[in-house]
């Protein structure tokens, strides 16, 4: 299959505005999940990981007037701009495609107090795609993937497929989601939010932390643009549990299927970045799927303790973190994890470790019974 290389990337989150800043914070074991008191978002104080909106607007003002762009739009554009600044690709070409991954996009415009509430088309993701197209003067309208929490991983594997068609030299994959009253209230009604920063795979985990972030990965057919170690996306798949629309399959059916498919026929994995949302059911299901796939001894972590669950951005920023791990041969500990808490034993990384990472597996699961996998190699 035609090689798909990884060029540049970006992460904007509570821990920083580019990949290096985020990596530094993670190396130091910092969490971006904090207690917030914002009555516009929730009736009581809530734990979440939120980006610095003032810094975002200030940075954005070098590109355009922030008052004309929503928070979500500023996040996406800023993330793309940073990633593009690190690679010389021309995005206006017919041979460049953008893919946007998000679960809810500009959903906060439904709030009557939102500055863009009176622009009824602003909430539609196709409209956001057009806005991005106009901003960057793109030839093609961005493809929009909206598939719950696997959107980010899906967007990258779809981007790789697009490169393989031979029609595109570069695919810019970007994803973002906000912490909004809309989403906070929804997860609250599921009783799935925890007090304090979440504890992935831990015995005492009680739920997830929500996070806001944007991430960008530039995929390319041009080997010269790929950085250190010539990272390549090998393959990726999605599947469905066909079991329940919100709860994961007790046997990890769908996740097991995509892990098996992406590792066929006999690929070895050095490191797994799990979904690890820290809900009792998700982490348990992942341990079952990993165990069924014979991966119990492979070092695995979750980044949700650092960034929270960033929904449409999650797959992308966690893949970027995986790429950083590969380039620097470092495995990051699962922040929030202390004691094993799943019925199937798995090898949760509990301290930062120097270790060669040649093959990296990313997995994710989401509402609707969706699951996805992706493999990157050096």
């Amino acid at each position, binding site marked *: 299959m035609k090689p798909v290389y990884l060029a540049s990337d970006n992460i904007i989150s509570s821990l920083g505005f580019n990949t290096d800043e985020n990596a530094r914070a993670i190396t130091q074991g910092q969490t971006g999940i904090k207690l917030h008191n914002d009555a516009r978002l929730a009736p009581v104080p809530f734990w979440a990981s939120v980006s610095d909106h003032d810094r975002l607007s200030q940075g954005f003002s070098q590109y355009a007037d922030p008052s004309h762009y929503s928070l979500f739009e500023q996040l996406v554009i800023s993330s793309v701009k940073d990633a593009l600044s690190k690679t010389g690709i021309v995005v206006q070409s017919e041979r460049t495609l953008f893919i946007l991954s998000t679960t809810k996009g500009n959903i906060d415009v439904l709030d009557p107090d939102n500055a863009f509430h009176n622009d009824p088309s602003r909430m539609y993701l196709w409209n956001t795609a057009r806005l991005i197209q106009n901003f960057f003067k793109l030839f093609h309208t961005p493809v929009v993937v909206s598939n719950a929490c696997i959107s980010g991983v899906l967007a990258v594997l779809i981007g790789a497929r697009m490169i393989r068609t031979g029609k595109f030299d570069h695919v810019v994959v970007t994803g973002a989601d906000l912490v909004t009253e809309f989403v906070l209230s929804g997860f609250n*009604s599921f009783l799935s939010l925890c007090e304090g920063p979440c504890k992935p795979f831990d015995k005492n985990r009680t739920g997830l932390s929500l996070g806001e972030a944007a991430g960008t990965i530039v995929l390319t057919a041009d080997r010269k643009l790929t950085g250190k170690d010539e990272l390549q996306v090998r393959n990726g798949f999605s599947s469905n549990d066909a079991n329940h629309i*919100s709860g994961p399959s007790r046997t990890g059916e769908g996740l097991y299927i995509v892990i098996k498919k992406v590792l066929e026929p006999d690929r070895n994995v050095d490191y797994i970045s799990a979904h690890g949302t820290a809900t009792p059911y998700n982490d348990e299901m992942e341990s079952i799927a990993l165990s069924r796939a014979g991966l119990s001894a492979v070092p695995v972590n979750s980044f949700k303790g650092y960034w929270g669950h960033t929904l449409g951005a999650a797959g992308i920023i966690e893949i970027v973190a995986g790429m950083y791990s590969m380039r620097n041969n470092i495995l990051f500990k699962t922040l929030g994890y202390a004691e094993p808490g799943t019925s199937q034993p798995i090898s949760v990384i509990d301290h930062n470790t120097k270790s060669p990472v040649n093959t990296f597996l990313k997995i994710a699961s989401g509402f609707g019974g969706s699951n996805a996998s992706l493999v990157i190699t050096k």
Partner: protein
Amino acid sequence: MEQLIAKLKAEIIDALNLTEITPESINENEPLFVEGLGLDSIDALELIVLLEKKYGLKLGTAEEGKKVLRSVKSMAEFIRANNKG
């Protein structure tokens, strides 16, 4: 208690969109989950919302939730015990 149970049955059918089920066909002593009505995890969360919305009652823990939501009868008893029905 009879009246409360009848009211609860109607409220449950409405809250959970059990469109093809009549109040008469629900046995108040039968389990709501796994067997009996065979409700699922989202239904359980909706019943928690129902108790709060209609009766001002908040369930403390998942354990308490399991006991209270065992059957229509146990829900009615919980409401009565808290002087809300």
